[in-house]
């Protein structure tokens, strides 16, 4: 199961990068998000899987595809000039980030929890637990995120509607 979902995620991501057609690239991204949702289910977190699908594939990517269709741009624009320095710099940066993230994940306490078997296994995540965690342990972060989103929303309206 893990291999299946991991393959769906990776192939989706690869397809998104390599595909020249923008709409097909977007659909590849949908596949990648689906794979991630499947991985969440395998990690006993169905709530995160459902939210991943609702938020990312159900809302964000639909809007992205909507904009692509509205601009009617079928093909990716060609770069005007090859920029080898930037390209290799970005590859190196991404590799460094990926390495650091892997190291953090493998060194964290969560990895040991994966080895736990039987009755000791942690219970599956529920919406109630997500709610309590958000509003009890991470209230400040939650409120700040809400404020940032509100500011972004007002900014978007102000940018697009000049005469309110």
């Amino acid at each position, binding site marked *: 199961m893990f291999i299946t979902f991991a393959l769906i995620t990776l192939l989706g991501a690869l397809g998104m990068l390599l595909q020249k*057609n923008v*709409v*097909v690239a977007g*659909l590849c991204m*949908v596949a990648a998000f689906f794979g991630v949702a499947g991985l969440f289910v395998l990690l*006993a*977190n*169905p*709530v995160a*899987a*459902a*939210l991943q*699908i*609702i938020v990312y*594939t*159900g*809302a964000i990517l*639909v*809007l992205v*595809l*909507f904009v692509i*269709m*509205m601009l*009617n741009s079928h093909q990716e624009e060609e770069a005007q000039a090859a920029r080898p320095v930037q390209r290799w710099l970005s590859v190196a940066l991404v590799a460094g980030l990926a390495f650091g993230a892997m190291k953090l994940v493998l060194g964290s306490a969560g990895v040991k929890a994966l080895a736990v078997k039987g009755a000791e296994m942690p219970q*599956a*995540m*529920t*919406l*109630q637990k997500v709610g309590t965690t958000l509003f009890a342990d991470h209230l400040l972060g939650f409120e700040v995120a809400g404020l940032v989103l509100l500011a972004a929303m007002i900014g978007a309206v102000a940018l697009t509607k000049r005469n309110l």
Partner: protein
Amino acid sequence: MDKLASLLHTSPAIAWMVAKLIIVFGGVFSLAALWTWVERRGSAMIQDRIGPNRAALFGKIKILGLVQPLADGIKFFFKEDLVPHDANKALFWLAPFLALVPALMGFAVIPFGRSFVSGGQEYHLALLDPGNGMGLLYPLAIGGMAVYGVLVAAWSSNNKWSILGGMRASAAMVSYEIGMSLAVVTIFMTTGGYDPSEVISAQGHLPWAWNIVRQPLGFIVFFTCMFAETNRLPFDFAEGESEIVAGFNTEYGSMKFSLLALSEYCHLMTASALMATLYFGGWQVPFVKDPTVMLSVASFLVKMLFFAWVFVWIRWTLPRFRYDQLMRLGWKAMLPLSMVNLIFHAWRMSQGH
């Protein structure tokens, strides 16, 4: 069930799972096919016509033209399968499946009858057993996927009418999803859980304790949003044949068109089932405390088919909205109403009711 399982050399759990798969997917699919007939006969009834009544088995058995869906199916299978020259071939093939699969999957979490115990094992009448952790988030997630079928069908046809239809549909579905989700969140709050079985048992068997009485405003919002989500008239902006030919499925013919049309009816069934579950007590039978399994299934079916009929009824009663009216209704009426509903119930809960 035990005997059947031993006959097939499997465990009762697996035999039950397979049986449920067949019941749910086969049931929803055949109900959707049946509903094409109900729609045609219903529209004829409403418009004082007769409707399809000629199709007959072996040229004899007519039964009100009930074999019409069968004849339609055979006809669709034998029609020429055209793909437009400039269409994106792969996506053009993929789109009907992208539309149909979410439409069928959405039903999986809905309990269509009460659970029962047989041979020391508990059997649940829902494809995904209660306590799966997804609960009612699952139909919301799958419902959000439904827009891809329309979008991909629209874009891959490479036809301006199709793209217009697809864009309208995606904008409408995304806007109405917010109001709908807030209405469902209110139900999660008052129930204290988000599993459909919890929502049903919290409503009890007395009709005045059902969520329709407790949250009439939420029901109105949810009901309206369901029309936009299923792309049914008065909100069927994906098609709108008076404006954009046939919308997103203009270029589709034969079985591919049939799949797109059937997926709409599957959506309709899932939407009706959701309304019955969330607001009308699901499989609860009014005034009967512990109904038998068959009675609970029948009660659920009656509620669900009633709403499926309401969808048909409204389609042939109301004219189509204008597009800006639809967006205004979604953002300036449904979303605030849904918020009012949410805040009112949050306030009531904080007062200890």
